[in-house]
């Protein structure tokens, strides 16, 4: 039976279809003596050949079926069997398909490559089969399709593809296009791993042609190139986002998107919550805003600007402070203001912009005590107990809107701070 495979097939195929059939089988036989010999050894799947002889008669249009049959046969053989030819089988399929394509006028190169016995050259063909124009792929002189792929894939695929070949071929139920498609699916993955050597290898392996050399892992049509470009752009953005979003060590696009979404929701929620807090008091301060605008201009004018509006209050508070801290605080609250130690303001202002002129003043005198503190707009007449301002520790230094009153001895600051926190 094994012998009959070779003999009968050759004769029947050749006899039925003429030159095309001869061509096909000649190439097949010549290029693949040993693997066929292995396969041709008695295995029940090969019984199919006898049944399948009939379709072989219609060579040109049936070439597609042939390859399907071969594919299924190879697969069966793989499943049933032996380890050693297993690796050779995918190559065989490709070679046969390539030879089938080689029947076409442009197939000389294919045949030549097939004759060289280099399996690497054949892998592109399933990709071309995977496309809708199977007939075209077989018959056309391989203008852009198979040859381009051929060139592209020539180099690095064999190693990767051999590993990939098993699963795609198991999927091949319907025949050549299916494994071709799956392989086409697997190939870009494999291709993505080693683009450079493949491209160079492909260039070296293919005979010189004036065709567009496709990059590894993609066809030459503009759609996939645009796709690839778009995907790269998206990957760039994702990387940039990764730096911004905390906990974004995920490499997966889906989980990255998830993290981003969570973070946006979180920040939006924070804005909402913060706007429900007592920020409203901030709007009450005319001097505050005036100060900021003047600060925007010149910085050192800030103290002067605020002085005019707050001087009276300032003095009043200072007076009160001499007597009793509590009354001073109440007075301030009545005005809707709060106290804050200068240390915080210094920290803030030094961090943001030019140092305050007031920070450098040193002076004695209790009258100026109040001036050493920041007088901020506070919550107005709030019943709760948060009225004394003493922000703990250093908050972030960017709050540049705080005004520092004019100078005071530094020593007073601490004592006032202590007092007001009582």
């Amino acid at each position, binding site marked *: 039976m094994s012998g009959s495979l070779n003999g009968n097939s050759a004769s029947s195929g050749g006899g039925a279809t003429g030159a095309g059939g001869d061509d096909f089988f000649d190439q097949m036989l010549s290029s693949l003596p040993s693997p066929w010999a292995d396969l041709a050894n008695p295995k029940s799947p090969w019984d199919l050949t006898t049944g399948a002889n009939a379709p072989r008669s219609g060579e040109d249009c049936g070439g597609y079926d042939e390859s399907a049959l071969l594919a299924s046969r190879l697969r069966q053989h793989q499943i049933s069997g032996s380890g050693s030819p297993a690796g050779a089988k995918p190559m065989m399929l490709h070679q046969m398909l390539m030879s089938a394509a080689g029947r076409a006028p442009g197939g000389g190169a294919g045949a030549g490559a097939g004759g060289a016995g280099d399996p690497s050259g054949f892998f592109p063909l399933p990709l071309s089969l995977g496309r809708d124009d199977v007939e075209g792929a077989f018959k056309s002189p391989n203008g852009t399709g198979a040859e381009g792929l051929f060139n592209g894939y020539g180099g690095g695929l064999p190693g990767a593809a051999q590993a990939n070949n098993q699963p795609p071929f198991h999927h091949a139920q319907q025949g050549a296009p299916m494994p071709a498609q799956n392989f086409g699916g697997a190939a870009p993955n494999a291709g993505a791993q080693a683009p450079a050597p493949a491209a160079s290898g492909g260039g070296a392996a293919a005979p010189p042609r004036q065709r567009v050399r496709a990059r590894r892992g993609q066809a030459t049509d503009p759609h996939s190139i645009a796709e690839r470009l778009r995907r790269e752009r998206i990957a760039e953005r994702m990387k940039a986002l990764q730096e911004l979003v905390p906990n974004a060590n995920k490499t997966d696009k889906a989980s990255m998107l998830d993290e981003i979404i969570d973070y946006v929701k979180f920040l939006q929620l924070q804005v909402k919550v913060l706007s429900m807090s*007592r920020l409203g008091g901030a709007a009450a301060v005319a001097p505050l805003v005036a100060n900021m605008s003047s600060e925007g201009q010149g910085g050192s004018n800030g103290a002067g600007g605020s002085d005019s509006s707050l001087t009276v209050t300032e003095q009043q508070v200072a007076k009160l402070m001499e007597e009793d801290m509590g009354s001073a605080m109440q007075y301030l609250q009545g005005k809707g203001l709060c106290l804050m130690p200068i240390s915080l303001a210094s920290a803030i202002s030094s961090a943001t912009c030019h140092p305050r002129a007031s920070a450098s003043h040193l002076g004695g005198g209790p009258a100026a005590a109040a001036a050493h503190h920041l007088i901020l707009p506070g919550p107005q007449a709030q019943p709760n107990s948060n009225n004394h301002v003493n922000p703990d520790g250093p908050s972030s230094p960017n709050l540049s809107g705080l005004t520092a009153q004019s100078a005071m001895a530094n020593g007073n600051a601490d004592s006032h701070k202590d007092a007001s926190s009582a």
Partner: protein
Amino acid sequence: MQNTIPSKQVLLKTFLTGLRRRNITNKGMTLLERKRAIKLSADLAMASVRKEAKWSNALMADLSRKFQRKTVLPSKHRHVVIKGNKVSTHKRGARRRCAAKATAIAKCIIRKREQVLRRLVPGGKCMDECTLLDETLDYLQLLKAQVDVMRLLVKALE
């Protein structure tokens, strides 16, 4: 891509100015009204710091539509075709086919999440994927800055 980190000073200034305009201090405002006004100022401040971003314009258009006030900054309306439908129908079709294939399932998930993101970022409905990610980046930067500013303010006032 806009890479400038938003200056918090400017943000704060704009924020406070906006707050003043809204006249928050009168005690007649309920908590909800006040919250809305503050949030409005916050959004406006954010949007005005980054005027060239798409989300910023979309946000301003949205806000002016909602609040109809003179104090709101003039909005630039952009008439952009909304491409959302295409995504949803594709997703429905893909759902049926992607039962067995892991990559297709992953794509479904990604598409779902992308849609959520579009809803979150102002103006996201009208962007393609690349732009969406760009705008998200920008928006996140601004949001973070705004939250920091507000936090500082709250801390300072307590």
